[in-house]
């Protein structure tokens, strides 16, 4: 049983790194020290009208200083509230949650789409193998600097303003890339396409999923995804994204 903590984290610093996209470093007591790439934390709002936690992936871990970084897009009221926090403010968080990515020593694609890019940063730092980052954006780039020196990087933008015009698979094709393992996080249509690509090419593939959550720890069954096999916990073909996931073998899950 992985350890989880509920803490009053303190904002070390926060900045808007792209339009509506914020990067926040949080000082934790224990969470950062236990966290792994691909795991997430739950953040709680100060405003009493919003009761549910917001799940946000861990982007970077500074285990030495027990700090962690999240990068998030303002998508609604909760993330808007978070974006107003500044150095010294505190925020309740629970974590580390979920399973995280397996760290394998195989030639890898690290594929991030939009706001699915953040978890790839810590993964790239911890993976010990040949790394090819494939990053998909709508138009404006962010978190590019972070990958410098960690491997080769390929970018796709929907509007073609940078790199390949199209999606991450177009960038892979255009650059004639290959890999033995895929780690991916991003919008569902992207994950679906990557799953097909991986199966077609016989590549081991790990996908990080999203679903609406209530408890974030596996108790409420809000956040399930369809699984191919009967899940040992649920005894039906449902797995909990917050507990068995958010990272799943592509073959395990159905979209």
């Amino acid at each position, binding site marked *: 049983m992985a350890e989880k903590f*509920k803490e009053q984290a303190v904002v070390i610093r926060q900045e808007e790194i792209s339009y509506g996209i914020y990067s926040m470093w949080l000082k934790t007591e224990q969470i950062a020290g236990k966290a792994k790439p691909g795991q997430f934390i739950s953040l709680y709002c100060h405003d009493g*009208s919003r*009761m549910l936690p917001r799940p946000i992936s861990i982007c970077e871990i500074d285990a030495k200083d027990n700090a962690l970084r999240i990068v998030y897009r303002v998508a609604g009221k909760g993330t808007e509230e978070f974006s107003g926090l500044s150095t010294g403010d505190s925020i309740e968080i629970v974590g580390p949650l979920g399973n995280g990515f397996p760290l394998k020593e195989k030639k890898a694609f690290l594929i991030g789409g939009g706001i699915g890019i953040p978890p790839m940063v810590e993964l790239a730092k911890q993976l010990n193998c040949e790394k090819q980052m494939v990053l998909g954006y709508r138009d404006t780039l962010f978190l590019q600097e972070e990958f410098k020196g960690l491997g080769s990087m390929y970018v796709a933008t929907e509007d073609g303003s940078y790199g390949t015009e199209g999606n991450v698979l177009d960038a892979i094709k255009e650059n004639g890339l290959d890999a033995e393992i895929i780690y991916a996080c991003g919008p569902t249509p992207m994950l679906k396409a990557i799953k097909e690509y991986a199966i077609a090419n016989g590549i081991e593939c790990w996908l990080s999923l999203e679903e*609406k959550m209530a408890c974030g720890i596996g108790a409420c069954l*809000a956040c399930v995804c369809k699984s191919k096999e009967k899940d040992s916990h649920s005894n039906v073909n449902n797995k909990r994204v917050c507990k068995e996931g958010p990272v799943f073998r592509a073959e395990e899950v159905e979209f």
Partner: protein
Amino acid sequence: MNMEVNLAGVTLKNPVMTASGTFGSGEEFSEFVDLNKLGAVVTKGVANVPWEGNPTPRIAETYGGMLNAVGLQNPGIDLFVQRDIPFLKKYDTKIIVNVCGRTTEDYCEVVERLADQPVDMLEINISCPNVKEGGIAFGQNPKAVEAITKEVKKYAKQPVIMKLSPNVTDITEMAKAAEAGGADVLSLINTLTGMKIDINRRTFALANKTGGLSGSAIHPVAVRMVYQTAQAVKVPIIGMGGIATAEDAIEMILAGATAVSVGTANFHNPMVTEEIVNGIRDYMERYQVADIKELIGAVK
């Protein structure tokens, strides 16, 4: 200072329980809460066979609350008996199993399977708004309430709690029907049926369209129904609906509840149940209440 309460012969060390479906069978929350500190753990609803539940999204946040349409996903009674009951038996707390079904026979089958199990009470969910068959259909008609209570009582070896729906014109009618059918305890309220629409995507926020509204938002409705029910029946009442603080719990007890269940608040703060136990104790100390029973139904 005595915090013990008695529900149909079962003594709880304190009146704080978990609300079915929000706490699993306690395992996940045991990383945050010492289950030994709780009066009872009420499990997620369990049926005779495994249920898949509804498609996602199953939940949506609302102002001061949430909607859920989990649809009673559960692993079925076999795995539950093999895994969840032994887990809970490790703790010094009462075990209350919440039972769901599509037909009266389904309910009775589960109740019968639990007869020789080390569980303290059964809570019969006849008020789930999120499944097509069973659930709330049993809970909105006094004749049906009485009938299913009678049937379940035939098979039950443990005291039976009937869990009532707030989606009715007159809660006391349902309460009296359950009492007439032989219910040992009543619990209320289950969720209020609600809906949320995403105006940007112009779709329902939940795959199931409607869901059950829970959380602080519904607390005043729950207090009112517990109060009305306490004036109408003799059996003890477990009050729930939007309890998020010790103050909320005490309000429910003053309105007539012998024990309380905490649901949605667990999602906002995984340690809340234990904090509520401590908060009730503080209140009793501050006002020199020697026995919590003095508070039950004290506001009339």
